[in-house]
């Protein structure tokens, strides 16, 4: 750790004032409790399984018959998960925390539903609880779940108020948030230590929520609700993608106005035909953002989503197979021509 700090000091040309003992303690704790993918998966799987059995217990013992008991236990369990993490920030307790958190939300929702609370109120309570979780603790898995619960609740508003076309507003908001979150890593790390700890789980949560929202508006299951004016949702995603292209060109040192103009025109030519499916541009945006910040998980999610969304797009096109074939061949030849034309410039460093 000290050597790493020395190297960073050399690069910035000054000595840092740093809390050596706190940093070494946190590094030691992280090293001791190295929780790779296996441990995280075990925590989530174990938590889910335990939650399922506990909910089964509540059904059989008829605890669900009392709305007050359900709400009470829901609040106690959510509070218990938060308190447990606040007092003992330990990866070993993640399984218990995850179980308590999921069960708590389930009970709270069931209790409020049984007490005839409106769906809007239930969603607002879920959102408030999620925000409270993020403010109080910065545990990776719980923060990730909190973001999913918040966005899931927001998405449920889209269904109930589909007449107001709120999905355009929601997607625009998510596009802006995801882009800013990815590209302002250094700024967010400096705002507050709590935000610095929340950076990674929120990045994952926002990515999953963004791709989930794109799936919602593009899938056939809900097409009848969200099909109107999809190009409005496409616009912010398109703008964000072009902004990413601008940053990439800057990084590659492309300064000539003519070259930049050609690149923008080509990008527009690729993306504009997909304006009725903002999901494709959204997946491309996640791929570009993830590659920009070297985020492998986002890159995998973005790539898989891109393959799925583009397959769905062509499947849903109300055209004959011959026309689809012509479209695909044209697209393929277009990319291959670009590949050949840019080969010299892109492989000059090899």
């Amino acid at each position, binding site marked *: 750790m000290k050597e790493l700090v020395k190297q960073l000091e050399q690069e910035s040309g000054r000595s840092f004032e740093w809390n050596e003992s706190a940093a070494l303690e946190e590094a030691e704790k992280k090293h001791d409790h190295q929780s790779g993918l296996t441990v995280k998966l075990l925590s989530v799987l174990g938590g889910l399984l335990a939650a399922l059995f506990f909910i089964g*217990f509540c059904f059989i013992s008829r605890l669900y018959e009392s709305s007050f008991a359900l709400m009470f236990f829901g609040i106690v369990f959510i509070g218990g998960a938060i308190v447990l993490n606040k007092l003992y920030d330990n990866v070993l307790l993640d399984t218990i925390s995850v179980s308590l958190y999921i069960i708590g939300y389930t009970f709270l929702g069931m209790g409020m539903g049984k007490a005839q609370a409106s769906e809007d109120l239930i969603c607002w309570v879920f959102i408030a609880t999620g925000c409270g979780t993020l403010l109080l603790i910065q545990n990776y898995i719980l923060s990730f779940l909190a973001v999913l619960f918040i966005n899931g609740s927001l998405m449920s508003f889209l269904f109930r108020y589909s007449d107001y076309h709120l999905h355009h507003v929601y997607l625009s908001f998510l596009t802006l948030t995801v882009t800013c979150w990815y590209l302002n*890593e250094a700024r967010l790390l400096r705002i507050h230590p709590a935000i610095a700890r929340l950076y990674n789980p929120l990045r994952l949560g926002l990515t999953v929520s963004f791709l989930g929202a794109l799936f919602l508006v593009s899938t056939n299951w809900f097409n009848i609700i969200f099909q109107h004016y999809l190009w409005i949702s496409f616009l912010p995603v398109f703008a964000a993608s072009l902004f990413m292209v601008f940053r990439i060109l800057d990084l590659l040192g492309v300064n000539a106005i003519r070259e930049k103009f050609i690149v923008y025109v080509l990008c527009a030519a690729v993306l504009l035909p997909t304006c009725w499916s903002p999901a494709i541009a959204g997946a491309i945006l996640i791929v570009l953002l993830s590659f920009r910040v070297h985020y492998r998980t986002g890159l995998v999610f973005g790539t898989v989503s891109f393959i799925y969304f583009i397959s769905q797009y062509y499947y849903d096109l109300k055209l004959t197979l011959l026309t689809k*074939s012509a479209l695909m061949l*044209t697209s*393929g030849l277009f990319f291959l021509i670009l590949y050949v034309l840019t080969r010299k410039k892109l492989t000059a460093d090899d």
Partner: protein
Amino acid sequence: MRPIRQEDIHLIGRHSDMSEQEIHHALQTHVYPAARAWKKFIHRLLLVLGVGFTACGIVFFFAYNWQDLHKFVKLGLIECLLLVSAGVTLYPPLSHLVRSVLLTGASVLVGVLFAVFGQIYQTGANAYDFFCGWWLLISVWVWVSDFAPLWLLYIVLANVTLNLYEEQVASGWSTVFLFTLHFALNGLPTLGAALLSGFKVRHNIPHWLLHITGLAAVTSATFGIVVGIFGHGNGDLVLLLLLAMPVYVWAFVHDRKRHQLFYLAVIPFSLMVIASALLLKLSNDAGMLFMVSLFIVVGVTLLIKSLIDTQKKWNDAN
């Protein structure tokens, strides 16, 4: 000194007075890809998109004309593609990777050929002999290429053949017996790799393949035992237990010796699921469900603690 990672910069940034610009500079230097990486990425992306869309366009073209094509043209087209892709693998200047990918493509085309044959002569698309024939015919290519993704396809086909055989022919088999066969089939690669290592024969079977097949084997054993606990196949359950338990012990000890966490995590979790099934068999009232829930929480927590402690011991020993 090891390279600086994103988590190092985050940690130091939280506990120091590094400015936003300094953190950004550190991330730019040590984490974010440089211009060269971007050029490589864009270069490959254009190629993948170009080849992908062109290939799909060709497939869609044939799909459009498919009904009107004569059956010999349909079969002939696929056979030509098969011959070309398999034939090109014999061209020496190509790298081993390209030849292996082409052979994998040829193996997939064998299945396409059988599917088209089935479509023309209406033999039924899910007949087990279709998958069995596909699996048998690509055997030599799989062994010769020694290419992990092709081996995965081979193992998947074997599993599908087994399932369909049980559905369509061997109707007398119990579910537990079927899971026993799946356990044996999927456990073979791991056992094979271990035997090769034991006889000091070098192999390049990648860990991800062994982990996927190992996970499939453990999952089959777990499901089989759980079904056996709640079902009636006592004889088959005994057979599965006699096969699975020694293999579990061996795999656990084997991974412990090689300082790998995979089976140290998967096998105890499988045993926990089996124990939960046993508890539920005793009683499925509310109290027992609560007990099982508690058992899983405590069990997984202790398992995670044990894994972390083991990892720490191995790291300190290195």
